Structures are given as structure tokens and as C-alpha cells.
């Protein structure tokens, strides 16, 4: 089964002619993803590494049956790209683009949610279901098919943790990087709900960080709805208040968003929390 992306995923890459778009189209293919099209206005009819390029997402969907978009378009044109994908009827959108203005994110995400479209990101590494498909920029080598579902706000920290559990012989059903911006299309709760329903997922790893209250809300949800064991790691225990720690959303503001509050809420919901990222494999059994 897996969640968000699987064998039925057919990807159109928006911004395929850029360096990242071209590079990751190949990497997704090598992982086994069906990348069926690319979009770059004005470059319709060309090909990039054998992938046909179209002028619009609508053309790509009509000609190739693409159902998932992966967006590499730079921030100033990113909202337009996502809206175009929504208008073309794509059902899943992964927005890799970072530094998107928050008002653009709000608008894009609300339209997606109102239409029942799964939008992951912005500023996210994407989604990987090992053995099936990946959409985004996650490094292929670290994954192994299995039964742990991973959901995370971070990119490289997720790689670190996935790599550590793979090295211990534990595989993953799906890894979802939801992104570290203040407003995201998909939050912890959305993914936890999918993992709870997914028969392939037996355990869940949640990787959070300081800022906002998404982890506290996830803890409430876990308490009430998640029956599968959950292990969590929260980054930023030693971060000072008032300083933005890399991610736009990673800031302790007016006493809210501390790691302590998140860890406390998660532990109260029966989640085992790791002190170090490298402790996560120990807590999975």
C-alpha cells in the first residue's frame, strides 16, 4: 500500500529544464518512479533525458495521464505553478521550492485542501515509498522497503534518521517530508491518519522541531486516534528563544514552540521520544 506515492504515481515535473529539475528527474527514475512528463512554458515539444516537455500542466496531464506534480519552480513563480497543477486536476503535489512568501503558501494550500488534493510542502524534500516511487529530492540510497512510516519537518535530519534505521536493518513503508515552513499543505496529523490506515505501516517515526504547535496537535491526535507505536525526535532542545533556526518556522516566539512543551505533550500521548537522532533505531522494536 504505502501512502501518498506508490506504483500508480505518474509524475509531471514542473521546472524540469532547471538544474535541480533535470537532476532529480533522473534520480526519481532510477528509484523506479514513473516520471511521465515535464513542464516548462515555451519549451513544449522538447525532451529532457527522454522525458517529453510540455508548455502547460494541462497538456501534460492530457497527453500522459500524469496524476502527481513535483514542483521545482523558483519562489516568485511557484504559486502560479501550483495553481496551474490544481487547475489541471493533478491529485498530489509535492512543492520542493523554498523561500515561498507565506501569503502565497496560504493561498495555494487552501485551494489544494478545499479540492481534496494532497499538497506536500512547500520547502520539503518530498515523499519516498521504498521499492515503489519517490517524488522529490530525498537521496535514494538511504531507503529500504519495510514497515516504518516516517513523517518529518526536516530534510537532512530525516535522511540521518532514515539512514540510521536502515543501517539497523529496519525498512520503511513511506517517508514524508512535510517541510519546515510556517504554513504547510500537509501536516503531521494528515500523515499520521494515513499511516494509521495503511496496512503496510506497523510503526511510526515523527521528526519535529521547535516552533509552532504542530507537534502538540499531533500528540493530541495520536492520543485519540493512533493505535500504532510512535517514536519521536524533536530538534532544537538547545535553541535560544527569539532566534530563527534556519527554517522559517523554527522559532520560539513569546514562550511558545519550545522543544520541552512538544516532548512533554508527545510523552503524555504515549510516544517514546529519542534524546538523540541516533537513538531512534533503539526505540523501534
Amino acid at each position, binding site marked *: 500500500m504505502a501512502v501518498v506515492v506508490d506504483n500508480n504515481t505518474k509524475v509531471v515535473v514542473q521546472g524540469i529544464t532547471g538544474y*535541480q529539475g533535470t537532476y532529480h528527474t533522473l534520480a526519481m527514475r532510477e528509484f523506479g518512479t514513473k516520471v511521465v512528463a515535464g513542464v516548462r512554458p515555451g519549451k513544449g515539444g522538447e525532451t529532457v533525458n527522454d522525458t517529453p516537455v510540455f508548455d502547460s500542466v494541462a497538456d501534460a496531464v492530457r497527453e500522459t495521464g500524469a496524476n502527481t506534480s513535483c514542483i521545482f519552480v523558483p*519562489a*516568485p513563480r511557484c504559486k502560479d505553478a501550483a495553481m496551474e497543477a490544481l487547475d489541471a486536476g493533478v491529485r498530489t503535489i509535492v512543492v520542493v521550492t*523554498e523561500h*515561498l*512568501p*507565506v*501569503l*502565497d503558501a*496560504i*493561498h495555494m*494550500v*487552501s*485551494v489544494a*485542501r478545499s479540492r481534496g488534493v494532497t499538497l506536500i510542502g512547500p520547502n520539503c*524534500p518530498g515523499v519516498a515509498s521504498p521499492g515503489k516511487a519517490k517524488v522529490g*529530492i*530525498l*537521496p535514494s540510497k538511504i531507503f529500504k522497503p519495510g514497515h516504518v512510516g516516517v513523517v*518529518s*519537518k*526536516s*530534510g*537532512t*535530519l530525516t*535522511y*540521518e534518521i532514515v*539512514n540510521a534505521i536502515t543501517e539497523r536493518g529496519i525498512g520503511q513503508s513511506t517517508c514524508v517530508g512535510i517541510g*519546515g515552513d*510556517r*504554513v*504547510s499543505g500537509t501536516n503531521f496529523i494528515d500523515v499520521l491518519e494515513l499511516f494509521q490506515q495503511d496496512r503496510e505501516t506497523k510503526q511510526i517515526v515523527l*521528526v519535529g*522541531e*521547535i516552533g*509552532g*504547535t*504542530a507537534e502538540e*496537535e499531533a500528540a493530541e491526535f495520536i492520543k485519540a486516534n493512533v493505535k500504532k507505536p510512535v517514536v519521536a*525526535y524533536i*530538534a*532544537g*532542545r*538547545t*535553541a*535560544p528563544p527569539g*532566534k*530563527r*533556526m*534556519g*527554517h*522559517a*518556522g*523554527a522559532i520560539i516566539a*513569546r*514562550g511558545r514552540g519550545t522543544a520541552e512543551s512538544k516532548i512533554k505533550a508527545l510523552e503524555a500521548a504515549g510516544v517514546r521520544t529519542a*534524546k*538523540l*537522532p*541516533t537513538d531512534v533505531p533503539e526505540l523501534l522494536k
Partner: protein
Amino acid sequence: MEYKAKEVLRKHGVPVPDGQAVSAPDQIRSISGPVMVKAQVLIGGRGKAGGIKPANTVEEAKKVASAILGMNIRGYVTKEVLLEQRLEVAKELYLSITIDRSRRCLMFMASPSGGMDIESVSEDRILMQPVDPLIGYQPFIGRKVAAFMGLPPDQAAQVADICGKLHEAVVDEDAELAEINPLVVTKQGKVIASDAKITIDSDALFRHPEFESLPDDLTPLEEKAKKLDIAFVQLDGNIGVIANGAGLTMATLDSINMYGGKAGVFLDLGGTDDPEKVKSAMMLMKEANPKVVLLNIFGGITKCDTVAKGVLEALEGKKPSFPIVARIKGVNEELGRSMLKDAGMIPASGLSEAAELASKESLRRV
């Protein structure tokens, strides 16, 4: 800065007092009646610190201004003062728009108890009114906010109107916070923004080049890093951490702490594959002069040999004044690792080991 925020509000039709900002007392030529002289610093609590004082004549205003200019208010030196028409206050309200992360929308916050920190106002005196992005701002939102303030009809109508204009200012200027506190009702029954704060979304600056030069609450090194598009935060420890990705960098800081060390610099390279950027990052780190540097790279978009190349270029073949513990993993790791090892850096295989080694080094080198 207050006066900059008020310029933005004025532009969008929100009533603000007449005022002029000056950086020296002799710039004050005339005043239009009694004024308040207000220190322009990026921190609250100015009034209590003596940064806001009244004046009735030009002479008085000059005297007060020269006392406030140069004043250090909780670490911020006053470089400008705002001379502003003094209001006859009947009532102080609170009105703001912020980003609600959970609901993914703009959120009005309103209270009839203005003039103090909104955090200290009890919850039943605060209205939270979201703006559904698909509905957009509609006048009913302003009416609802105004009704909560408990004002006579003509004043409520002014508040409702201000709500619409404040929302317009937020959307047009890409603000992530617009706060009017207090929103004053004068004895004459006029509603006017007495103090204001606006924060522009830094990711939207490409649409607003006019805001690029606005001051920030940053140390000189942090300011320099910002210009280079490097996430750099100075902390109170002595280990400099360079990693790629915000979560990984934070996790590295936390791991150091577990082994008794303390980070002095948080430096997130982000997703770059440009050796020049890595080089500038390392130069910044040299300026910060920590006791130990921990380099933790999980290569993906950022390739390990790119990082090694940038680091070595920054060191210019010289031995740095601090030891460097290097943990390199991911794309092209063998190459990156051997480049750094040849340059005398301490290799570590995992994150925990790297954190332990760096902490030990930092404790040894007092």
C-alpha cells in the same frame, strides 16, 4: 521601526498621528502643537525605559530629543526619535493581524484592552477572527471585530474600516505581522493608530525591494551571513557548528549538549552545492572564532566534496586556530572525507561520535 510602520499604515489609509522622524535635535524646526518624543528602537518597553517623553515647544522638543537620542534601551541605541502630535486618549484598544500556522490563514486579534502586552490580557478579552483565504477579507469581519470592542456606533464604524485597511496593508506589503497597540479612541471620538509594528515576510522581499534595507535585530556577523543567504545564529557556547539543513544543524547542537559541550554558532548551509558559499560560511566561522568547529554534512543536493573544497579554500592551506571535527556522509563521501583528513581534520563516523569528540575538545581547550 514605529515611524516606518506608520508610513505603511498611512499609505493604506489607516489614520495615524502627524509626525516627523529626526536623527539630531537641530533637525527640529517647528512642531504643530504639543508632541510626544518617541525613541525609535526595535524593542518594546520604551516608555518604561524613559524613551517616550512629552514636549510643548520647539525648545522643549529639542531638549527632550537630545536626551533620548543615543539612549541605550535594553541593548538598543536610539538613533532616531519620532515627534508626534500628542493624542488626548479616551480609550486604548488592541488590533493585529498575524499568521495562524495551524489554521493556515491570516488571523485578526482584537481586544478592548489595549496599551499593554497582548500576552498579559486575559483570553476572554481577546477575539481571534480568522480570514478564510478562499473567502478573503469581507466587511463582515471588520464589523465582527468592531462589535467586540464595545464602542458606540460611529467609533465601531471607524474600527471596522481600519480592519479592512489593515488587511489590505498586510496583503499588499506581504507583512507577516501588523500590530496596532494601542489603537486609540481620542476624547474627540476619533480612532487612530498610536503605536504600530509591522514585520515584512523576508521571503517576499523580491516583491518589495523598498524594504530590503530595513534594519533587523541581528549581530554584525549575523547581518553579514544574511547578505550571503546563510542561516547563522550566534549562541553563548564555544563550539561552532556547520551542517546542512536546519533540522540537522539543530540536532547537532542538541547532540553536543548531551555530551557536555555548548554550541557558540549555528550555521546552516542549506541546500547549496556551491563551494564559494561553503567558503564564505567557513570565513564567517573563522571570524566568529570558536574553540572547536564541528562540521556535520549529510550530502544530497550538497555534495561532500563540494563542502570539503569550500572549507579548504577558506583555510587557504593554513592550519586554523581551532581543531575541526568532520563528519561527512552521503553523496561523494569518500572523496570529501579524504580531502579533509589530508588537511588534518579529526574524522568522525557518526553524529553522536562527532558530538562527543567536539565536546571533549571544547572542554579540553579552556
